[in-house]
């Protein structure tokens, strides 16, 4: 096949994060935990608005009024020379901006971007925390959220009442357009030929349309965000303020928040949806790129702290084992190639580094700190058998029945639904095992193209493994059905969510345009609608973020302790992504670390039971004050007046829950325990 030029949007999956300010910063384009070219800076830091890649400092995180800035997602377009078979990594790709001249001589004169954001959480199924994706197995589905609203999941009556759908918005980069995802802006979409069509009859849905009054503790939920382009024509997706609103009951009392995951009568302003772009050239021709997906969700409270298992690790593992990503690594019949040589700096070091970073967001004992430091000190010159990781003696094997074995196996954080403890992915474990057998490469390793690097970075900065239900994405990132599976022959490339074709010309003001949408394990392969990713997350998002600090393992295993330790022992839920214990920058003197403090602390957080430490005791407070939680950041990017901090330190900055010197619940050294249950007390 003769080669042709194709176009892809990157990152394939990108994340915009809530903030209460009108100002914004840009989502990081480097991976958490990875050392940057300067040898000092650790990746994962967001980027200053209006810059190519100038990293934020601590004073960039809030506006002058103290409000947390939003984190906008930036999408870029790349062209590729495609010969009929895509490989991974391709190592190629060049960015396309307004004015780019392609090898065939055509010059880009406009980029028409279309984004569609929706939130189906309230209309979707419950998150089942001890089953996870298995709740969809064998033709089953979980109970619907808001079951008092009559109808099936696709019923127009339910969707009209429970779904938030702002509809699509299209903008021309050359015209400098922008568009808001609110009720006052007419939906529009690119027609694939470079033009934008309006759809005034599109059935936009917001909670206020069907509720006379709503409890709005932080303002009305009347937008899901906004889009515009930068001066190069790249797409910027700004999320909403991440607020939540609740219905009133028949006594005109706001419906009480009764749980963490599936609150009845509540909406939040999370959203997700497809991103597509049409290129217009100076010769009048147009081309359509392989699109992407944007997800608007929780803030990144510790952007540089890498999850030992990130969303990237899960997505990569899925693609390696199920979608033929790297035949030299894994074959459908032969399995992992025993001769495959992982690259130390790319495949091994990130896992070791992530372990060492856990200390900045969790209350680890000295034993762990020193051991993790030794793990992180391993480099490519070391003989594996002479290191602390010899024989992978302390790594939980995902291929064995070890998910209920806690200490001393790592990672020691909580596992996914139905399991006590987390495991690295099977591909991560294979890489580690190869290294352990002295079968690995040193040096720079595989070459990734700039777009491929953006894909990795965006997902590395998200939580993996413990999708109960997760923070940015849930377990469905491991479902091959959500992706474009013929990625090699179509040129789409890997990790690209399949867009369900949507014909907006059929939109009718009275009928919900979107359906209940895609669900896993039901053979649905026609693609995802807007809102089909975020609907698997908690509603409202704040209550889940708040509660998922520390738990007993039995929370995952039907209330029965299946672990090899005390039922009351507490473990971390999402320690990298949802900081538990932190060091406060203002309390660090001369780079000497003070005692840790809970990330969520101060009035309203005092816990009688250690199991609920580091949380707002009243979930409503989490809805009102989530933006006051501090951000953990590398010392070299902290700009507190007259102070300097070592780049070795990662400290909480810009916290507003307590003032320096305020007392707060002390942080216990791990292991620590929940109070005995009523049954145990007798």
């Amino acid at each position, binding site marked *: 096949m003769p080669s042709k030029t194709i176009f892809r949007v990157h990152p394939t999956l990108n994340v915009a994060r809530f903030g209460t300010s009108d100002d914004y910063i840009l989502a990081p384009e480097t991976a958490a935990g990875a050392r940057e070219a300067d040898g000092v800076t650790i990746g994962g830091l967001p980027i200053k608005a209006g810059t190519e890649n100038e990293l934020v400092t601590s004073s960039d995180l809030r506006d002058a009024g103290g409000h947390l800035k939003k984190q906008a997602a930036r999408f870029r377009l790349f062209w590729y020379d495609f010969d009929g078979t895509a490989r991974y990594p391709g190592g190629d790709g060049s960015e396309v901006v307004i004015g780019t001249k392609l090898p065939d001589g055509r010059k880009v004169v406009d980029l028409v971007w279309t984004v569609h954001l929706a939130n189906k959480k309230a209309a979707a199924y419950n998150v089942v925390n001890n089953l996870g994706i298995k709740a969809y197995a064998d033709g089953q589905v979980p109970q619907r959220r808001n079951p008092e609203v009559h109808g099936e999941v696709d019923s127009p009556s339910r969707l009209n009442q429970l779904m938030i759908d702002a509809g699509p918005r299209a903008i021309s980069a050359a015209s400098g357009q922008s568009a808001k995802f609110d009720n006052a802006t007419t939906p529009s979409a690119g027609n694939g030929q470079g033009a934008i069509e309006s759809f005034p009859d599109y059935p936009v849905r917001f909670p206020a349309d069907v509720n006379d009054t709503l409890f709005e503790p932080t303002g009305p939920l009347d937008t899901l965000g906004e889009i515009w382009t930068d001066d190069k024509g790249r797409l910027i997706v700004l999320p909403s303020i991440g607020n939540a609103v609740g219905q009133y009951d028949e006594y005109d009392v706001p419906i009480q928040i009764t749980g963490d995951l599936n609150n009845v009568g509540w909406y939040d302003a999370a959203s997700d949806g497809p991103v597509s772009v049409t290129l217009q050239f100076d010769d009048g021709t147009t081309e359509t790129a392989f699109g992407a997906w944007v997800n608007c969700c929780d803030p990144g409270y510790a952007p540089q702290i890498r999850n030992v298992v990130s969303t990237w690790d899960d997505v990569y593992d899925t693609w390696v084992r199920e979608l033929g990503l790297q035949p030299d690594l894994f074959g459908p019949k032969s399995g992992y190639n025993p001769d495959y040589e992982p690259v130390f700096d790319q495949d091994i070091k990130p896992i070791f580094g992530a372990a060492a970073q856990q200390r900045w967001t969790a209350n680890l*004992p*000295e*034993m762990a700190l*020193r*051991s993790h*430091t*030794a793990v992180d000190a391993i480099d490519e010159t070391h003989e594996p*058998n*002479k*290191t*602390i*990781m*010899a*024989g992978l*003696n*302390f790594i939980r*094997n995902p291929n*064995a*029945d*070890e998910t*209920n*074995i*806690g*200490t*001393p*196996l790592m990672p020691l954080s909580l596992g996914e639904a139905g399991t006590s403890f987390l495991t690295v992915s099977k591909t991560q474990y294979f890489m580690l095992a190869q290294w352990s057998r002295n079968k690995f490469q040193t040096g720079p390793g595989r070459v990734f193209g700039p777009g491929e690097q953006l894909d990795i970075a965006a997902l590395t900065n998200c939580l993996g493994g413990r999708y109960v239900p997760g923070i940015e994405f849930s377990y469905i990132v491991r479902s091959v059905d959500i992706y474009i599976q013929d990625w090699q022959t179509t040129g789409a490339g890997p990790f690209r969510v399949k867009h369900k074709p949507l014909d907006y010309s059929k939109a009718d003001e009275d009928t919900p345009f979107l359906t209940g949408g895609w669900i896993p394990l039901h053979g649905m392969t026609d693609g995802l609608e807007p809102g089909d990713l975020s609907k698997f997350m908690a509603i409202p998002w704040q209550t889940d973020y708040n509660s998922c600090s520390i738990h007993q393992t039995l929370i995952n295993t039907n209330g*029965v*302790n*299946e*672990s*090899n*330790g*005390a039922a*009351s*022992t507490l473990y971390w839920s999402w320690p990298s992504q949802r900081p538990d214990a932190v060091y406060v920058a203002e309390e660090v003197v001369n780079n000497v670390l003070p005692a840790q403090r809970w990330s969520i602390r101060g009035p309203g957080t005092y816990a009688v039971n250690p199991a609920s430490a580091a949380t707002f005791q009243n979930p409503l407070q989490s809805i009102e004050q989530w933006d006051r939680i501090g951000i953990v950041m590398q010392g070299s990017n902290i700009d507190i007046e007259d102070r300097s901090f070592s780049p070795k330190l990662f400290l909480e900055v810009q916290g507003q829950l307590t003032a320096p010197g305020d007392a707060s619940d002390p942080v*216990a*050294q*791990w*292991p*620590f*325990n929940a109070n005995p249950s009523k049954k145990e007390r007798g």
Partner: protein
Amino acid sequence: MNRHRNSFHKARQRRKGLGRRQAASTGKPSSTKLTADQWDIAHLRSHLQAAVDLEFWTLPFYLSAMYSIKDRSSDAYQLIRTVVNQEMLHLQSASNIANAYGLSPTFAAPKYEGTNIPHLDFSGDDLDEIDKFKPYTATIGALDLEHVNAMCLIEIPEYLTGETGDLNENVTEYGSIGAFYDALRYGASLLTDHLHGGVKQVDFFSAYYRGMPSLKVIDDGADGFDQVSLLIDLITDQGEGATKEDETVLPAFQNTADDVAPELDHFDKFLAIKDAKELPETFKGGGSGDQLQQILVSEFTDLRAALEHLFGGGNPQQFFPVMASVGGAIRNCWENGVSPRFS
């Protein structure tokens, strides 16, 4: 894991009738008894060093058995793991007591030969009870009947302990570990003038034992002795249980974090392994792997040095990594068909 807990408790029932009766009037080898007046600080310190040696001896022996088990989720693996953790606690406790009496312990390489288990002398015992745990071996090896028998014998209850111990000139002259610790406690009580709390005390375990008032000796004199006595109780109770045969480990001495059966003493845990339907599958040693053995010897040598540094008042940054590395090196030997070697 939880599903197996009931079976652990059954072991306690089977334990009834087992155990050694210390024979006051049988043919135990003659020893050099000391009176309270003859007992001095040098005697006490030699006994304290022996206590450290004894606890240290168990670590490679138990660890080698544990890491030989292929299935890390097996009951046997998990039970031995919890015992190993407590042996480390005992090592810390014995060392803290030693430092309180002015001795920073040393850590010589233990010897594993024949059936020579330190402080086990069955000549004065009811041989019928002892015979239940034969054959046994004191050599390093995979978990098999001989090793699990040895592990039971090391921790076998001594029901007549709890009385004032006989003081011996020579630490090798005690017929049992229980008798040895009885003597140690009694001998320590005689020399409280030499007891100084807060000296080179180490605590890495208090978060795992939320019920323990203290794992350090922090006071001088009589108050300090109460703390010494508490640590000896901790060692003996976790090891062989309280002096009455059906009692579980006292709540204060029970692990509160990561023990699959915190109420069971070491003897009951090992008895549960012995009495299980079958022993777990193990790796086979004996293969050629001199390099892996050398790595283990090197790591273990480093660990001994780190322990001396630690209990000598230092703060070796590499202590935990070295300790962990020893475990990895043992496992690595087994997985590659090589028997562990420590010196």
